[in-house]
């Protein structure tokens, strides 16, 4: 996007564009069909460029969102006229869109802001269709629903633009080849398909919350967007479920503590040293309400337990009064239904708090599939912490130095160096 607009306008339209483009792509994908996803993206891109150009000279209109919707409608009509003898659009809409008698009215009817939530939910299911690989699903959600550029997605995933462009290309190809429709899954497929959507949102959130990407703006956007999408899902009769509420609760508890994790100079802080007074109590309170709603079914998902763990951290007034016993029970439970080395690693931290660093070291040795964590900087970092606490400083230093070689994040490197200095 050209950067020739006045600076005062830029933050507003960046934010506006990101949200409006997500809405418009969802509607236009409904109109053109997922097979023509690229056409929908082109129309939105053209619309935003036109807005940028027009607003630069005429100022931002009173209702920028309505302006964009009208402009997108006109662009869509142009595209339909250009493509109507070459392309099929979505299902029974196709013939109506190709006739001058009905195209304008049909577009007016479809391109409005009323049913926009439904469209975005359907778009989520399209993005998370089983024909698309998991890494492609998340990239696609960011590109279509969250208005991220390819460069921004690449930054969020710590990869290059070419890799992301390929993932998006492969996803669009699948839509074309498999003729995917813009709709909610059939009732029989819904529970399973909903789980894929939840997984994608969970990954999206973790990318923002845990990734070592140092661009704080991108990370905040990822967290905000995953909360927004999870909230949309929980707010619709077809897509809400105990698991949806559990995920939403988990995201609220984690996001509520997002700003506690760095100090005023942008240094990472461990949980022990965080200032709990700056946690977002409102968000944490909302999370508690969602967790109650999540408990209204008879199923327990990993999201339920993870939310339970996050909740325990949220309600502890300080690090010392954390209910580690309860948290260990929850980790044991989580490990039963979702056995994975990451869970076991986190469990070891809890064991160390409860029974001492020696027990923590023993728990590390018992992690099944520990090879999977071989290149994960936190494994040696945590081992170093336990070793330091048992007085084995030189071994601790070795592990911290190993951890340093496993992360590219300046913030994480800095924290590790600080710990080496403290030994």
């Amino acid at each position, binding site marked *: 996007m050209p950067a020739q607009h006045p600076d005062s306008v830029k933050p507003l339209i960046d934010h506006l564009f990101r949200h409006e483009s997500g809405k418009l792509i969802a509607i236009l994908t409904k109109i053109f069909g997922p097979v023509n996803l690229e056409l929908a993206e082109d129309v939105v891109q053209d619309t935003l460029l036109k807005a940028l150009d027009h607003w630069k000279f005429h100022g931002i209109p009173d209702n920028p969102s309505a302006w964009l919707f009208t402009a997108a409608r006109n662009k869509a009509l142009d595209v339909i006229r250009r493509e109507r003898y070459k392309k099929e659009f979505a299902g*029974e*809409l196709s*013939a*109506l869109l*190709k*006739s*001058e*008698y*009905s195209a*304008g*009215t*049909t577009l007016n*009817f479809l391109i409005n802001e009323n049913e926009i939530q439904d469209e975005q939910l359907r778009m989520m299911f399209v993005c998370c269709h089983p024909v698309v690989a998991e890494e492609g699903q998340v990239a696609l959600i960011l590109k279509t629903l969250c208005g991220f550029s390819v460069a921004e997605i690449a930054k969020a995933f710590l990869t290059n633009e070419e890799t992301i462009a390929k993932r998006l290309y492969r996803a669009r190809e699948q839509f074309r080849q498999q003729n995917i429709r813009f709709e909610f899954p059939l009732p029989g497929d819904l529970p399973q398909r909903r789980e894929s959507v939840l997984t994608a949102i969970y990954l999206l959130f973790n990318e923002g919350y845990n990734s070592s990407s140092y661009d704080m703006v991108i990370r905040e956007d990822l967290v905000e967007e995953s909360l927004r999408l999870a909230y949309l899902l929980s707010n619709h009769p077809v897509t809400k479920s105990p698991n949806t509420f559990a995920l939403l609760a988990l995201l609220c508890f984690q996001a509520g503590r997002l700003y506690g994790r760095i100090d005023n100079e942008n240094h990472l802080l461990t949980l022990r040293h965080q200032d709990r007074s700056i946690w977002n109590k409102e968000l944490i309170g909302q999370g508690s309400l969602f967790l109650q709603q999540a408990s209204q079914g008879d199923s327990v998902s990993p999201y339920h337990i993870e939310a339970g763990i996050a909740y325990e951290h949220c309600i502890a007034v300080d690090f010392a009064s954390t209910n580690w016993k309860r948290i260990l029970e929850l980790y044991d439970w989580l490990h039963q239904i979702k056995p994975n080395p990451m869970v076991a690693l986190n469990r070891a931290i809890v064991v160390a708090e409860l029974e001492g660093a020696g027990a923590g070291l023993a728990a590390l040795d018992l992690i099944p599939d520990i090879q999977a964590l071989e290149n994960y900087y936190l494994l040696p970092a945590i081992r170093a912490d336990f070793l330091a606490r048992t007085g084995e400083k030189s071994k601790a230093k070795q592990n911290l130095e190993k951890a340093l070689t496993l992360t590219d994040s300046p913030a994480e490197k800095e924290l590790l160096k600080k710990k080496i200095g403290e030994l």
Partner: protein
Amino acid sequence: MKEFMLVFRSSVQNEEVFAKQSPEQLQAELAKWNTWMAGIAQQGKLIGGQPLYPQGKVLKGTSKKLTDGPFIEGKDMVGGYLLIKATDINDAVEISKGCPSLNSPEGSVEVREIMPVHP
């Protein structure tokens, strides 16, 4: 399922009024067309079709004599057409009864079946 062409005719005057409506009038008029056509589309019976400008040219005979047209002696003229699917001519006629062309006494809908040609 057979295919039919619906040919919409009206007086020259009506057609010119249609083409020169204000945007608001046009929107109201097209809303009626959209409702009718959306009903046909929902049954999977809409193929396509377009409205036509009242002005045009007419070529005639081997001499290809050119005149301004399309109206012949100031009578009815074609204002547009639609292609639909229908089970038979009676079904096509039933569908045509909803056409907004028939809101005017001069308007007519001619229902013609597409002829599959087997050489």
